[in-house]
């Protein structure tokens, strides 16, 4: 585990394989990781069977980021998520049932089937599908949290692709000027839909944050304990002395952008899988992983079986 400095990484340099799961919370961490991964796989499977409508953006490969961060968030904190948000939601609520029913348009969905995969809102969590849009909204939330005098922070998850939007920079400027407790988490998978970082980004995200006087950390690797050790004190400091912070994770997207649109070579994708967290995790905690994977798998299979039995969701708001 290390913080990376210097110039931008190339796509072929992906997070090193390192041990993961924090010893003191290994069981909960592993459960969350398998739950998110299992959920995303279930979604892709349901799509391939024609059971699901619309589209989805899975976070395969990136699950560890919200799992690492979630325990660092407190009750008044407000999370803004993006199009690739299932992991963010599940790391916070563990609610695979509400999320799957939402995506299936069935009764019991978090937002009555109206929001779908990209538009979720409940208890201090909101996602929306336009990139760059949630960063200023999170800054507004941060302004209110600061003004109300608590320790709350606003968190905006973005991809590196979202940093193409001017709204992000306008917001960094204001958040820095007004010392807003705004945490921008950048899941930098070096891919924006089908485009490679080298095609769309000059310079580095870190330097862009620094240009506004905003502190930025760049983190590689997926050791949950080490991520928390690095990030925890930073977030605690934001609560005591409000200011914005950017945390960039050098990560990898294992799946396609949405369902079947992955222009990357099979060799590259295979290389990314070799650097994934799951195999070393299973090696390090074989029994616990097996037990947890079985339990999570059973929960998801039951959900698969029961979800289709639920009635279609009701929505009375259309006027």
């Amino acid at each position, binding site marked *: 585990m290390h913080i990376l400095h210097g110039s931008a990484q190339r796509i072929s340099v992906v997070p090193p394989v390192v041990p993961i799961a924090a010893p003191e919370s290994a069981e909960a961490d592993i459960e969350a990781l398998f739950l998110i991964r299992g959920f995303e796989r279930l979604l892709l499977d349901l799509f391939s069977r024609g059971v699901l409508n619309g589209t989805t953006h899975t976070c395969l490969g990136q699950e560890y980021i919200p799992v690492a961060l979630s325990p660092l968030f407190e009750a008044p904190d*407000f999370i*803004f998520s993006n199009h690739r948000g299932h992991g963010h939601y599940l790391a916070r609520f563990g609610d695979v049932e509400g999320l799957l029913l939402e995506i299936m348009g069935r009764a019991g*969905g*978090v*937002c*009555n*089937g*109206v*929001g779908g995969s990209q*538009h*979720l*809102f409940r208890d201090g969590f*909101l996602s*929306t599908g*336009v990139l760059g*849009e949630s*960063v*200023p*909204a*999170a*800054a*507004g*939330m*941060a*302004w*209110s*949290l600061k*003004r109300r005098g608590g320790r709350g922070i*606003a968190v905006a998850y973005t991809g590196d692709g979202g940093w193409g939007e*001017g*709204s992000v920079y*306008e*917001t960094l*400027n*204001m958040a820095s*000027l*007004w010392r807003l407790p705004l945490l921008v988490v950048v899941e930098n998978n070096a891919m924006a839909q089908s485009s490679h970082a080298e095609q769309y980004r000059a310079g580095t995200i870190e330097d862009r944050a620094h240009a506004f006087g905003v502190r930025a950390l760049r983190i590689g690797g997926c050791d949950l304990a080490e991520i928390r050790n690095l990030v925890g004190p930073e977030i605690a400091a934001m609560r005591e002395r409000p200011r914005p912070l950017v945390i960039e994770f050098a990560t990898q997207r294992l799946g396609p952008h949405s369902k079947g649109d992955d222009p990357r070579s099979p060799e590259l994708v295979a290389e990314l899988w070799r650097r994934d967290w799951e195999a070393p995790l299973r090696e390090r905690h074989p029994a616990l992983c097996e037990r947890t994977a079985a339990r999570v798998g059973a929960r998801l299979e039951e959900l698969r079986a029961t979800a289709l039995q639920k009635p279609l*969701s009701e*929505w009375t*708001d259309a006027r």
Partner: protein
Amino acid sequence: MHAERIVENLNRAHHELFGRDPAVCLIGEDLLDPYGGAFKVSRDLSTRFPERVLSAPISECAFTGMACGMALAGEKPIVEIMFGDFIGYAFDPLWNLAAKSVSMYGRRVPVHLLVRCTVGGNRGFGATHSQSPQKHFLGIPDLELFEVNPFHDNVELLGELIDRGNPVLLFENKTLYSRHRIQDDDLDDLFSWRFIGPRQEFAQIYIEEPESPDAVIIAPGSVVFPALEAARRAFLDHEMETVILTPAQLHPFPLAPILDDLARAKRILVIEEGIAGGSWAESVATAIYSHLWGRLENPVICLHSKTSIIPCARHLEERVLLQSGHVFEALIGESVRA
């Protein structure tokens, strides 16, 4: 003694709102005293409420997006867009975030957000500081459009708008700021006026009790003045009786309170300073047709400014923007201006 000026009325509306509701805040450009906003609507506000007036950088997109986040936090933000021509930068947060948040999450989410937007020409500011962008915001679910006029009291109006729970765009024609509010029942030696509608949706301006007027002009905001001038001339020259209806709310347009007036009119004009093509006036005309088809004596006439950029020089600007002469000609049926 004159009634207060409209800019003073708007300023007082802010002071009263801030005074009674600690959730109300203001974000926009150049708001701090002693400047107090480009048109002085926020004068003395930052002195009285320094914590709640955010004088932002020139970043319409992000500060409007921030206001959406504030509203989601339970605050009641007011956004000031200095020139309506700049609201293009704020289109995404208004269209995709503020308006959609009300219903996109499967249940009603109150969004207390008021965006005030200075619009209009006749000040010689040229093509990028004079436009009327209202039509670009028509028909967005849960986004409501209002316009300041000389009749409705902005102290009441702003209080109502910030509490609606739907995001609201309030257009303010910049030629109105220095005008005085119209409060006396008699507007002048010829015209009287009163509010009509269960919620005082319209100011109705008339010469005598309107039994069956020769014409009705629906005229929001500042175009009530060219309407008045044209109506006076039509009465003096041709003994035509015209009723002018000035709505506070542009969209969704409250047609019910004026259907009777419209049904009795021999001629209906809908006028605006904006330009034709998916315009507000056209949408109102369509609504009138769908309610009164078969009862109309004449086609509804929509009057706009010319489909043109707005030039700077006064004589050229007058050539483009809607003038009382155009309204007069349409009233007496001499010509119909597209």
